[in-house]
């Protein structure tokens, strides 16, 4: 069956550009997560949705980062005025319900800001 998909897989942006990263979770999964993985590091939590509600955005590094999930399925992570320190792999994960359920991860979007 289809897993979590993310697009684009690779994105190169010039410093100052806005980017939008898309996540398609597994159909029927209620919970959706975004993580940021810098080179040589483990993923770090950015934000969490339950259906369309963004319940936790404590990990977003600045107000340039914005995430939405308007219909409770597809989610978009937007980064405005990108900076070089935003270069990382952005991972999306979904799980069936909130709780101790397995989070299924997508392949990630590798963002490089020049």
């Amino acid at each position, binding site marked *: 069956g289809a897993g979590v998909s993310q697009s684009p897989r690779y994105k190169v942006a010039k410093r100052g550009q806005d980017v939008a990263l898309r996540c398609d979770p597994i159909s029927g999964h209620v919970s959706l997560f975004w993580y940021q993985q810098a080179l040589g590091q*483990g*993923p770090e939590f950015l934000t*969490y949705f339950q259906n369309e509600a963004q319940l*936790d955005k404590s990990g977003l590094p600045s107000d340039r980062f914005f995430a939405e999930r308007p219909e409770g399925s597809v989610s978009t992570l937007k980064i405005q005025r990108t900076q070089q320190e935003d270069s990382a792999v952005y991972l999306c*994960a979904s799980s069936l319900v*909130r709780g*101790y359920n397995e989070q299924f*991860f997508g*392949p*990630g979007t590798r963002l490089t800001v020049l």
Partner: protein
Amino acid sequence: AQSVTQLDSQVPVFEEAPVELRCNYSSSVSVYLFWYVQYPNQGLQLLLKYLSGSTLVKGINGFEAEFNKSQTSFHLGKPSVHISDTAEYFCAVSEGDYKLSFGAGTTVTVRA
């Protein structure tokens, strides 16, 4: 807040030899523990998890881990590795019921 330390950044190992990946965590409350594997150009895949009960947890692909509360450790092992086990392995901790905190990862390279 919790933190996770993976004590080895790289572990080279010969095929059919055993491997152990070490993970320590710090937390002031009870935690839930996970090991994920990441193959090149793929997403993270759950190997195993500890929520409660038996401290010895068996996962996929022949991996197992042991939770040691007194030492705040959750080490991962496999008695005999294959070339296909070459990957990056992440230990993760959750204090609540959704947010995962990951270690920096351990790269396992299996050589023939």
